[in-house]
């Protein structure tokens, strides 16, 4: 009875032996392995390029679990960008291989995903989608000196090392920009904040907003927190904001909770100005939500899906065509930009796929400080060696069920 377990252990070590065989291929996976990668675009004539070196770009984010919607948007948008680039002849003539791995919004799983991608031959990381996993993965990329560009991991710690860069605004920057915007436009003097204390994004914005509000002479009359475990009933928070006479309610949260807050505020006939950050983007697409409640909501977001410029329209049309009419959110736009930023950095630095991971990283991180990229989420994006992006925040207001520029 007990010996059999020993036998199992032996079998297990044998399995390990056989698994270990996969480990030897680090840099360039062979063609047999390529069959497994269904995520690679099929538009490109693979036969022609099988022997030509390619850039292996990996992506990490949640495509299952609670935060899955963000990861899926990033994955889908990045694939659209990769397909476009490959169809147009690649980067400096090199095609791109892209593979996206799931991290279930968990740091531990994210590191596993990172190692899976490394075994696959990843040279550049476009990830992670969320901040906490990013904090774990950045240690790995730093140790390996692998170039890392996060589309939407907005905590400033994610880009703490010199090999990591951000496409989105960092949380503190959003908080600061929000406070300055409220003050400059003279929107309100008394502000209430409802934020998610168990979420890094939300607390990050709130803390900086509170700090900057003092400088801008904005009074925070109520700072009400909720957590992921209590995100359905906001009547207490709304009542407190109402009782303290807040003219503006700042919502540095994601749109799912915001729809509930708007609905519940309307139920008690409380109509302040609602102001949010990029997390509110997507609020009009929520099912069973009366969009007339969102009328007049202001949000600072780098991306609006119905912007009039040609590139945004093309991207939104492509995305909708490929994914059953789903409208891409700001995460998707960040990811789309991320791939083009990687392209720009590669072109600037002139790195080639046959270089080592570390050499590619050194070349690209220097190039990042020199390039300026016009993307969906901002024109003339530039970076400093700190990894933070410089771009103008854009305010949009919801009018007649549409996002319209507020300026």
């Amino acid at each position, binding site marked *: *009875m*007990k*010996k*059999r*377990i*020993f*036998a*199992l*252990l*032996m079998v*297990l*070590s044998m399995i*390990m*032996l056989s*698994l*270990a*065989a*996969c*480990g*030897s291929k680090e840099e360039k996976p062979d063609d047999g392995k390529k069959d*497994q990668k*269904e*995520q690679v675009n099929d538009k490109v004539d693979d036969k022609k390029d099988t022997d030509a070196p390619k850039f292996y770009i990996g992506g990490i984010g949640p*495509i*299952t679990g609670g935060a899955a919607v963000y990861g899926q948007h990033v994955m889908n948008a990045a694939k659209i960008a990769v397909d476009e680039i490959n169809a147009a002849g690649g980067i400096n003539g090199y095609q791109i291989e892209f593979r996206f*791995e*799931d991290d279930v919004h*968990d*740091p*531990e799983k994210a*590191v*596993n*995903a990172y*190692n*899976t991608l*490394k*075994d696959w031959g990843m040279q550049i990381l476009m990830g992670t989608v969320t*901040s*906490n996993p990013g*904090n*774990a993965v950045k*240690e790995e990329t730093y140790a390996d000196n692998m170039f890392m560009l996060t589309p939407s991991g907005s*905590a400033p*710690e994610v880009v703490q090392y010199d090999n990591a860069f951000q496409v989105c605004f960092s949380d503190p920057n959003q908080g600061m920009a929000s406070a300055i915007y409220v003050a400059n436009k003279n929107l309100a003097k008394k502000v209430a904040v409802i934020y998610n*204390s*168990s*979420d*890094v994004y939300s*607390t990050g914005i*709130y*803390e900086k907003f*509170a*700090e900057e509000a003092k400088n801008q002479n904005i009074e925070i009359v109520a700072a009400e927190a909720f*957590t*992921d*475990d209590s995100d359905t009933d906001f009547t207490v928070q709304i009542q407190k904001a109402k009782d303290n006479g807040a003219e503006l309610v700042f919502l540095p949260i994601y749109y799912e909770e915001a729809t509930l807050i708007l609905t519940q505020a309307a139920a008690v006939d409380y109509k302040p100005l609602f102001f949010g950050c990029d997390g509110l983007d997507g609020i009009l697409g929520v099912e069973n939500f009366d969009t007339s409640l969102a009328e007049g909501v202001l949000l600072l977001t780098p991306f609006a899906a119905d912007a009039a410029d040609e590139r945004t329209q093309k991207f939104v049309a492509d995305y909708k065509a490929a994914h059953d009419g789903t409208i891409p959110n700001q995460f998707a736009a960040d990811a789309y930009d991320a791939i083009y930023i990687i392209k720009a950095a590669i072109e600037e630095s002139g790195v080639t796929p046959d270089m080592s991971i570390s050499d590619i990283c050194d070349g690209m991180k220097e190039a990042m400080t020199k390039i300026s990229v016009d993307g969906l989420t901002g024109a003339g994006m530039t970076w400093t060696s700190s990894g933070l992006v410089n771009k103008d925040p854009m305010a949009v207001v919801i009018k007649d069920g549409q996002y319209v520029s507020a300026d």
Partner: protein
Amino acid sequence: MKNQVLNLKTRVMNINKSTRSNAVTIGGILIAYVVCTALINSGNMSNLLRNLLVAMCYYSIMAVSLNLTVGILGQLSLGHAGFMCIGAFTGAFFSKITVNTINNTFIRFTLAILIGAVAAGLFGIFIGVVVLRLKGDYLAIVTLAFGEIIKNVLNVFYIGYDSKGIHFSMKDTASLNLEEGGMVVVKGAQGISGTPRNSTFTIGVILLIITYLIIVNLVNSRSGRAIMAIRDNHIAAESVGIDITKYKILAFSISAALAGVAGVLYSHNIATVQSTKFGYNTSILILVFVVLGGMGNLRGSIIAAIILTVLPEYLRFMQDYRMLIYAIVLIVMMIFNWGPACINWRKNHSLKDLTKKLMKAKKEA
């Protein structure tokens, strides 16, 4: 020569059964360790697997320690991840504030492990005193609640450190009032990041073996027999004068302390730790290891933990269907692993039989 071999054989046979079984388990772990180290050193192991080795160790420690509560004490606990959480946070906190003062990694990490174990153990005693009056379903629900309480309380902790000492707040970092150059160690929902990454496979294996030995020795001691008597029939146990509360708390707190060790190993492995990781999902996962491996079967727990840690990673090629397939495989394993047909098959195909057959064949030759 033949005599000597026979002699050795009878001597091996004379060793008591549990010692022999322990030797097999520890031998198995050591063999796996040697094989893995050899593979790493020869550069033949994939990055993924190399990274998973430490995870296997701490999940095994979790499974073995929970088995003490569930399998040996016979009480269902659904809050085991809460103790891991305490170990992870206290250990990581200690390492972060002493990283510049204690330069010897070995001493610092050993202290971190001890602190994590003691902190989790103390919580085990505290919670044990409160909840162990209950049993069965009631206890399960209360432990579940305590696990969630630990998670949610740590989620709002802000702890900073500067020359004046440790500052604490439950509101935000600004209210810590740190002086210039102070460091925020615990950052609410962001938890602790930048913990020195001291966990290695070797340390993990050593801790796993120590955990295993602690529990095996406990089980085979007078206390262990008392604990199992409580499991089998607590009224009978009480009637022969066993102090039920004492032994329950003893088992529960040792189990908690060992979970704390696993937590320290966890937080020093991936450099960032958030309390949200230690919700009931993780508790249930650990319980799944125990149930799959067999209640009271320590070796089974280790094997189940290893398999279920590796499995989801090696199902990645399934893409979107990964977690679905994982769930199906889990259900199939649960149904068949302890089915009579499977147990029979294993009996007929055990290593013992194989060696016997070989011996026979040798003799006949």
